């Protein structure tokens, strides 16, 4: 009888192996699928994430932008003490709503799992992961100045301020905005989503493209000087009414300037002069410089969700979709003055100013400055990373001088700051909504000789010019940031 007993034990062995095999199937092979693909039936990951204290997000001055507190059930809930000020670009993180904007982009660090090895080690030790603190370069005072300025000036708008030397984002304001704490309220969230006139959930700084108008002349000027085809003293025809692509182009107030040098053309923002420059440079040269500035692709910002950003590009009608600047649909003369279907985000235009400010070296924009663990140890510092070399330093210097002229004696005098030299460029684009309802712009940087701030401001629905409405906001933002 012993033979069958031994064989029976063999059978038992096989059966237990089958049990281990079945368990392995669900814990290894199928684990990811079961954990991730059935969020309605399997709420374990959600409940567990609620038990992890999500990291705090802080502004540059150390003030709290977002933090998590425990409720009576022991679950954590997100609070936004600064309200609507940082609704953009920080976004929100709530159960059933998910994460948006910066909260989404930095989700791993905020949940304390940015480092796979460290996480595995903690798991082995049975340590409950804790979220890391994320420090940003965002400046609450300057952000507020930007929001208040836009709110006073027009219907909607956005402002972006960068440190041109590092690419750190100091201001990213979009108005109208929203208070992230309101997102938890189902009815308020629905109202936000329905509000087609204000679109409070859209971050206009990165998501909306606006015709950059005359601020784009800085790009054309950079291409003109850096290609060696022009100098600031080169002269072009600045008369109003010249035809480009068969259609007459007017200067402001239909003013004729005759042969005019490029510095004057920029200071007085002469449309026909710059259209002539652009046509002389040709589409391939314009394309090359636009790409160096960052046009025609998603912004290179590393800590903001790519899906929530728009590409700055030419969208002529026809064909009604983005095309490369070399496309046959492009009206090169109008493109060169920021029209002809060109759409640029405020972030992109801030990068144009930053590239000139930083001697032609464009830095990748980033919101995070560093990441700390809950004991306050720095685990990651975000180092400045170059995005592109846009132009030679000599070109940048020459262009800066021209932009200083704009603020000293041209269209941008309202951007002057007492005791500090400011370089800039205004822009005014007429929108499709009736007469004199303009989209106004100002891009610039300061102090001109050692720039610490580069800024772009756009306001929509303004009866007036960029120099009168956008420049003062840019000035206030720069002035606020230069205090530090």
């Amino acid at each position, binding site marked *: 009888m012993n033979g069958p007993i031994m064989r*029976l034990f063999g059978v038992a062995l096989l059966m237990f192996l089958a049990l281990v095999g079945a368990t392995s199937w669900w814990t290894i092979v199928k684990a990811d699928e079961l954990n991730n693909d059935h969020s309605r039936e399997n709420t374990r990951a959600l409940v567990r994430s609620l038990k992890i204290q999500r990291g705090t997000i802080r502004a540059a001055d150390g003030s709290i932008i977002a933090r998590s507190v425990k409720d009576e059930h022991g679950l954590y809930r997100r609070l936004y003490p600064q309200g609507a000020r940082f609704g953009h670009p920080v976004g929100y993180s709530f159960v059933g709503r998910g994460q948006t904007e910066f909260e989404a982009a930095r989700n791993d660090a905020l949940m304390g799992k940015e480092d796979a090895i460290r996480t595995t080690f903690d798991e*082995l030790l049975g340590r409950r992961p804790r979220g890391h603190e994320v420090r940003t370069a965002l400046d609450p005072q300057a952000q507020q100045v930007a929001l208040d300025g836009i709110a006073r000036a027009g219907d909607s708008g956005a402002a972006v301020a960068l440190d041109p030397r590092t690419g750190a984002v100091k201001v990213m304001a979009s108005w109208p905005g929203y208070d992230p704490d309101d997102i938890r309220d189902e009815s308020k969230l629905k109202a936000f989503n329905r509000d087609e006139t204000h679109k409070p959930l859209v971050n206009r700084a990165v998501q909306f493209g606006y015709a950059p108008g005359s601020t784009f002349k800085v790009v054309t000027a950079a291409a003109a000087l850096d290609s060696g085809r022009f100098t600031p003293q080169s002269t072009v025809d600045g008369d109003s009414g010249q035809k480009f692509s068969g259609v007459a182009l007017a200067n402001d107030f239909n003013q004729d300037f005759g042969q005019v040098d490029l510095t004057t053309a920029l200071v007085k923002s002469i449309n026909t002069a710059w259209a002539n420059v652009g046509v002389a440079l040709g589409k391939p040269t314009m394309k090359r410089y636009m790409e160096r500035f960052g046009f025609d692709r998603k912004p290179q910002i590393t800590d903001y969700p790519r899906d929530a950003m728009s590409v700055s590009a030419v969208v002529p009608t026809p064909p009604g979709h983005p095309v490369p600047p070399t496309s046959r649909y492009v009206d090169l003369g109008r493109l060169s003055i920021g029209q002809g279907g060109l759409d640029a985000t405020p972030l992109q235009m801030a990068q144009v100013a930053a590239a000139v400010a930083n001697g032609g070296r464009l830095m990748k924009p980033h919101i995070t400055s560093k990441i700390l663990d809950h004991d306050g140890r720095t685990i990651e510092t975000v180092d400045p990373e170059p995005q592109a070399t846009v132009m030679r330093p000599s070109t940048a210097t020459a262009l800066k001088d021209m932009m200083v002229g704009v603020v000293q004696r041209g269209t941008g005098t309202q951007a002057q700051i007492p005791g500090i030299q400011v370089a800039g460029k205004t822009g005014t684009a007429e929108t499709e909504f009736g007469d004199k309802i303009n989209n106004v712009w100002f891009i610039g940087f300061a102090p001109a000789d050692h720039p610490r701030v580069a800024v772009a401001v756009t306001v929509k629905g303004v009866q007036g010019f960029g120099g009168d409405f956008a420049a003062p906001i840019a000035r206030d933002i720069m002035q606020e940031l230069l205090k530090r």
Partner: protein
Amino acid sequence: MSARNREFLALIPAALLVTAGFAAVFLSREDLVGGLSGRNEVSDVSVTYGAIFLGLCIAAHLVLRLTLRNADPYLFPLAALLACFGLVEIYRIDASLARQQAEWFVFGLVLFSATILLLRRDYRVLERYRYLIVLGGIGLLLLPRLFAPVNGAYLAIRVGSLSVQPAEFAKIAMVVFLASYLRDTRQLLVTAGRRVMGVTIPPIKHFGPMLVIWGATMLLLFFIRDIGSSVMFFGAFLAMLYIATSRVSFVVVGLVLFGAGAWLVAGHVGHISDRIDAWQDPFNWTLYNKPGGSAQLAQSLFAQADGGVLGQGFGQAVLDISGLVQGNCTSLVNCSMLPAPHTDFIYAVIVNELGLVGAAALLCVYLLIVQRGFKIALLARDSFSKLLAAGLTSVFALQVFVIVGGVTKLIPLTGVTLPFVSYGGSSVMANFVLLALLLLVSDRARRDVEPR
């Protein structure tokens, strides 16, 4: 070292595990969702539990030392290990249930000692009462039929707040009867038959009772509507038949008969066909949302996936969702994401918290018990003892297979307990009796092998 000293030493790790386990549960408690939040109860309860547990085990060990000096030294510590592991896991699920389980544990040990004391001279007296025993066993099985079904099956009797599962005891009665019956008839089953196409067909006179048992199993399946118990009973029967006759052909015929019968019955009992549908496609959301559908199985698999290789850690499985639903949860068991986390699905909770690694370790402990059981059967010197030990071991192994296989979707899910680990008085007590019988056989088998 003598067998009993080895046994004593082996109990110490079990006691340490209880202490460590309770400490771990206390440490993680502050993070539990729901009713327990806010309080941070790190107390000396863990040590108390450990000490009481060690005391109980030592008492049982003394009984063994006095009565069965030669019995296998590893069986009892292995069972104690499982029991203490179960106790910690149940405590983690619901503290009040753990207190009851600890009481059942005491009763179990009393029954364990009583069985040993009663049968220590010669357990083979059981043979004399085999028909009484089998009638009692069948009676126990059919008893729940007089009461209302629980989850569609007639497995338990509710007496007040107590729930008794007679099948747990019936399985022992069944094995005792079969061991005795097969000892008498095994020679006849093999030799007296005619050979037809290479298969020995035993005379109907002797094979008749076997068919009766098959019929009884089918009736059982039909009456108590429980595949798990039927598989356990019939599987143990086939294992014992195989040991008694060494005929694989009998086993094959048995399996075919069982398969055909089960297929027939499954088609006619809604409860069983529901279970099979759920088993085939637990992630079909129509089935998932049906009452008695696949939600249980799907949640069990979710829990295991959540555990992964290393598990979430003691006390870290998400069982309670009261914090999210904001409903009125009286206890963790009622508001659980996983149904019956303390009984049928305790294996899923273990995988969730200790991962594949912990579950494999648990299965290893079971396998070691099974190995000891078959070893005892090998060492036993008479047919009845061999059949009894092998039968008890088989039914034990099958019970583990049925519930773990069900929870891991290897076979259709049925509610039997995970021996020694699941919450449940009947299960704990019956399994201690089973253990006592194995030790009795072992003591007799090793009596003259090991010097005194």
